[in-house]
């Protein structure tokens, strides 16, 4: 994802940001990968950047793939940054943070172990909010063409003449 907020580079933006959770840098109106290697940032217009960072963490906790960058989870969550959705999303993330307080953390994003965060999600998995986020991810994450190569999936093949000369029967370990 590229970043073009007020003409600033990602590096300039990061200089104005605070570390949030393990992986996120947040500033006024944006969330970004904390380390330089992450190389992504997402502007938010309606949600707070804290809420978007929490949504991205929640998305990863629902469908954790360690080889998939936060950038793709961020893309999957970007659609919730709308005027219509913001109020409900903020309220539900506030409830998630309140649940985290119940086990001794300030916010969901501060819960260090994935298994503890998953316990919090498991307790709400039948809620409309959880199901909305989970259901949306099925296409929002896995239907990103840029994600497919990470899983080895090759996608469209017609334009390359199919696999008749490209390994449809190349298995060599049987």
């Amino acid at each position, binding site marked *: 994802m590229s970043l073009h907020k007020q003409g600033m580079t990602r590096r300039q933006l990061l200089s104005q940001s605070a570390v949030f959770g393990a992986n996120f840098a947040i500033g006024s109106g944006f969330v970004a990968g904390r380390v330089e290697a992450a190389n992504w940032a997402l502007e938010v217009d309606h949600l707070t950047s804290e809420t978007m960072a929490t949504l991205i963490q929640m998305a990863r906790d*629902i*469908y*954790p*793939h360690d*080889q998939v960058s936060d950038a793709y989870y961020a893309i999957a969550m970007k659609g919730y940054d709308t005027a219509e959705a913001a109020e409900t999303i903020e309220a539900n993330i506030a409830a998630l943070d309140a649940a985290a307080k119940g086990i001794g953390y300030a916010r969901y994003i501060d819960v260090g172990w994935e298994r503890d965060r*998953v316990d919090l999600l498991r307790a709400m*998995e039948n809620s409309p909010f959880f199901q909305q986020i*989970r259901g949306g991810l*099925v*296409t929002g*994450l*896995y*239907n990103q063409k840029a*994600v*497919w190569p990470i*899983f*080895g*999936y*090759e*996608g*469209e*093949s*017609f*334009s390359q*003449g*199919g*696999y*008749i000369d*490209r*390994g*449809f*029967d*190349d*298995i060599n*370990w*049987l």
Partner: protein
Amino acid sequence: MTAPFDLNDDSVVVIIGTGAGGGVLANELAQKGISVVSLEAGGRYLPEDYINDEWDSFGQLAWTDPRSTSGDWRVAKDFSGLPAWIVKAVGGTTTHWAGASLRFQDHEWKAKTIYGDVQGANLLDWPIDPREMDDYYTKAETKLGVTRTGGRAGLPGNNNYKVFEAGAKALGYKEVHTGRMAINSAEYDGRMACQQTGFCFQGCKWGAKWSSAYTDIPKGEATGHLEVRERCHVMRIEHDKKGRVSGVVYVDAKGQQHAQKARIVCVAGNSIESPRLLLNSASSMFPDGLANSSGQVGRNYMRHMTGSVYGVFDKPVRMWRGTTMAGIIQDEARHDPSRGFVGGYEMETLSLGLPFMAAFLDPGGWGREFTTALDHYENMAGMWLVGEDMPQETNRITLNHDIKDQHGLPVANVHFDDHPNDIAMRSHAYKQGIAVYEAVGATRVFPTPPYPSTHNMGTNRMSEKARDGVVNKHGQSHDIANLFVSDGSQFTTGAAENPTLTIVALAIRQADYIASEMGKKTL
């Protein structure tokens, strides 16, 4: 007369639907010089339009008009508004089908006699002798260019097949091969050979897989006796004072309603829409819907016992490369009650792309149990299990008056409960499917629940006696002589085999009957 035909032309045969049943029937009648108006709810898409992308293709082709579901089947929970994965387009579900083209086994035509009384099942023998079907099956195989029939070669096995075959042979299975497929292994009927592209479910962009969309439909149109009106949704079938059908009312793409007169009406809208249309055509003379004196319209809905098994291996398979349904194990298709169920099942390779695997592997699943499966997508092999399910009177299509479609018509509710025989067969099939993959070193296996139905059957069933079903042995309704059913809804029982070849064979046979009766002036 030649196409196009006038709305007031009451000499035409009106066929509703252009898939395996309606599309073939339309061409067969047109070839005999009979005037046909085909009404198709969907648009016309050809190989150049098909999309090698699962969700984009679904958006292009799938029938996504509202429907509702009920019953204990898992589809009602996982996909409550999508009971079936079928197509709304010229060519119907022949754009989407995998191409498996298997004849019924002889005993499957006589399920009630052979299986005996099965508690809770509404079994009946087909009113057809299997020998009557031999020539029609041959004609259907010739039309479709089915591999491993008529001297046509089999398709080559892809990676997914090779894993499947190795496991099958390790288990001692004998009837294992790359299938009898309506996919060209060599150029045939002006269509090219399979290029092992994958995406068979998304419409074959080479035209190597048979679909009525680019075979029977244009061939019929070329005679001048067939007019296809696309994006025309039939709302109801009308009848005269004598109780004979007289035409149909349909709504076109602009929302305009038209009435087309007809000498004969043939319903071929798939096993959900066909009974829905008969029920939505209720009148003061036929208050329970057309052709429904038996009360069987919409009942005995069958969808095949289905399930899938995916296996993960320690090395790559890349199952998506090549033919989607690339091979079959037929050893379990026999009727052998010692396994704990009547009827049998086929095991057929299947692959899904990553997007559909995420949606269908374990609907609703999340967390690392789910995601570690997808992490090894490249190392997965897959198979589909498809077997005979029991007809039950309570599994049925009804009108849901609480939900209306875009035309203001009550939608279909699809109710399905698994029969104990279906459950016993599925358990056996999962066990055998898992064994196939474990025999070649699978490190993890997934007994995957049924997808939305692709094989929809039985809701206007054939019967010898009018009280037991909706249509006779020719698909002609018992109640109304000039009303026919021409799709899989006429199936008396479902057999273990993928239904398309039988739908095509019955359509060819029905065309002969209709032409003969028209010639005798009895229709």
